[in-house]
């Protein structure tokens, strides 16, 4: 009967599919297998796989399966795996998300391992504390990082102007950029990007006023006036053509490849120090790295040292001890430290920094020097961001766009931003 035959064919087809599926499962072996998951592209993958290989060579019987994908695809996969209780043992974590995942119980408290499998003796207090959430240690800092202003050197020098640094106040910075726009005489080329919608920039601004973006109890730490002043500042820069107009800034999706600096529309980008390498790779002109403008006389330091990323261990890990050992290997063991270099940021441990100093290229050295130079000028860690902080970062961007496109006045925008942010925070 053909009917039956078809069914049989269908079944063998399905079985074949299943069989193929099983084939691609890792072969069963006696060795311990750990999974490690990180975002990043090729260079990071090369370095990480190398580190894992070195670890396995030193610890026979432990094999690490690396899983990697770019930043934007990382989080949906991570969320799905978390929902399935199938997270990798060692997870690369971001400063924003670590609070979200730790508070929901997806990560392992690493405090019990400190001083045993995990040696943090080379870390200063700040570098350890930034991985703590509600007193427990959920992430090991892989590299120090701070906000940084990247500037196109030849644009400023060609116009006979000084390359901007952190010595300038915000107002001086605005004037300098307006002069650059005028002097450059290039259609559609401006001094600065519009950083009014970038949460790290706003945070620096608020901290310079002695406040924080979020208070210890998870409320908004800034006032409507602070926000209004911020929006008004950037509106002023737009008016004076010191920064790009709103419809150019809106092309920026807050990543390297769409930043106005990269697109050749502005001479300055507001970014993070570990992104210097990425920006330089897609920019034909040499870039300088410097601190954000200052709050002027009597202002508090706005910037702080933050972790570029962490390694965390999944709460569901079956081999937590081994996972911790892997992390320890890359922050302390000379082989591991050298394999990673400064690709994930400047190592927090001074011993490790000395280890890699000799192998650094020019960009790596610029990064290390920058962190060394800002260390004495930064403020303390802010309180941890509450739930909803991610949504507020989006809100800031949108509100700045509304001002930019003339849909709302800066004064109102500040009030509206605070109201909406508070309502997001109360929802959690």
């Amino acid at each position: 009967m053909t009917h039956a035959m078809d069914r049989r064919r269908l079944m063998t087809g399905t079985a074949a599919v299943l069989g193929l599926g099983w084939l691609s499962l890792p072969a069963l072996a006696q060795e311990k297998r750990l999974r490690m998951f990180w975002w990043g592209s090729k260079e990071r993958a090369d370095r990480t796989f190398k580190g894992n290989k070195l670890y396995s060579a030193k610890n026979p019987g432990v094999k690490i399966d690396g899983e990697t994908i770019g930043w934007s695809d990382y989080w949906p996969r991570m969320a799905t795996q978390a929902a399935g209780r199938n997270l990798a043992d060692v997870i690369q974590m971001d400063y924003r998300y670590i609070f979200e995942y730790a508070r929901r119980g997806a990560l392992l408290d690493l405090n019990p391992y400190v001083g045993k499998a995990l040696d943090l003796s080379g870390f200063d207090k700040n570098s350890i504390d930034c991985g703590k959430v509600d007193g427990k240690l959920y992430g090991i800092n892989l590299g120090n990082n701070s906000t940084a202003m990247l500037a196109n050197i030849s644009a400023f020098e060609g116009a006979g102007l000084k390359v901007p640094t952190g010595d300038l106040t915000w107002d001086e910075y605005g004037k300098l950029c307006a002069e650059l726009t005028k002097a450059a005489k290039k259609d559609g080329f401006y001094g600065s990007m519009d950083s009014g919608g970038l949460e790290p920039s706003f945070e620096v601004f608020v901290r310079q006023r002695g406040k924080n973006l979020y208070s210890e109890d998870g409320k908004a730490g800034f006032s409507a006036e602070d926000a209004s002043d911020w929006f008004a500042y950037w509106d002023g820069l737009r008016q004076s053509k010191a920064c790009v107009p709103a419809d150019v800034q809106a092309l920026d999706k807050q990543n390297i490849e769409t930043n106005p600096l990269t697109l050749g529309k502005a001479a300055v980008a507001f970014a993070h120090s570990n992104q210097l390498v990425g920006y330089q790779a897609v920019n034909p002109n040499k870039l300088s790295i410097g601190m954000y403008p200052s709050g002027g006389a009597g202002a508090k330091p706005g910037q702080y040292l933050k972790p570029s990323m962490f390694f965390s261990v999944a709460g569901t890990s079956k081999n937590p001890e081994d996972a911790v050992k892997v992390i320890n290997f890359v922050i302390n063991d000379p082989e591991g430290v050298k394999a990673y270099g400064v690709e994930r940021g400047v190592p927090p441990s001074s011993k490790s920094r000395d280890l890699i100093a000799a192998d650094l290229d020019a960009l790596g050295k610029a990064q290390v020097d920058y962190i060394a130079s800002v260390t004495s000028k930064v403020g303390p860690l802010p309180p941890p961001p509450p739930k909803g902080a991610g949504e507020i970062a989006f809100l800031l961007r949108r509100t700045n766009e509304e001002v930019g496109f003339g849909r709302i006045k800066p004064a109102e925008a500040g009030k509206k931003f605070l109201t909406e942010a508070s309502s997001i925070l109360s929802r959690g």
Partner: protein
Amino acid sequence: MASIAQPSSGLGQTVRKSLPAYGFLSPWLIGLFCLTAGPVLASLYLSFTNFDLIQTPRWVGTANYERIFTNDPKFIAAMKVTFTYVLLSVPFKLAFALMLAMALNRGIQGLSIYRAIFYLPSLLGASVAIAVLWRQVFAGDGLLNAVLKWAFGYQGPSWISNPDYALYTLVSLSIWQFGSPMIIFLAGLRQIPQDMYEAASLDGAGPMRQMFKITLPLLTPVIFFNGVIQTIEAFKAFTPAFIVSEGTGGPVDSTMFYTLYLYLEGFAYLRMGYASALAWVLVVIIAFFTAFSFLSAKYWVHYDD
């Protein structure tokens, strides 16, 4: 089956008559019950919880739905964006696809090359390159403005990053990727028997008359299919906004499509319970439109049976 003792009741009769059909349907039924039904019902359940992906979901009753309808301005904004997109992209895309399918159905030289070229944009799918490309075309210094300036001396705005126009650039992206309905129309045109045209020709009917009397009526099942599918797809549109605005929905939320909003709620803000409720509201809206299309089909779709 013949060996089964004949059931006497009417019900048995129906069951017996239905058996072959269920045999044919069995792969689909297995898929429905084993793969589709569970996750769909789970999402319905989750829409009544505060599921955050990691912790065990807690029942919150109809709170999510209440919030959607009484206290969520973003829901209304996303609805507006999505409806505008559906109303503009679907008719234009279908008209384009139908026109080109008809043009390409004629025996001209280089036919297969044209067909492949016109399908090319649809091949790009969700390619990362689309985002960069669309910016090259629709930015202030983009290709479109260069053409406008050259032809009319008009300096256009930055279409893609202006909240007044950004959505329309996504509509045009959708229209540009008209390849799939075009192929389906082509396949439909191929099914129209040649002899009908020959007969009509003999009766002295011109090309226009043939189109309205033969081509379009016989194509209605395919037009209907494309209409329903494209409407559903447009309501669910996610990729264009996600790729072009890189998940921000900007500028000023002007491209915050419904599913993008839902995705951000679920995966970025970890409110999967709320996202599930949003999804079910969307399902109801789509179902309403689809049911309406099926009701109307009685009056304009010609089936052979």
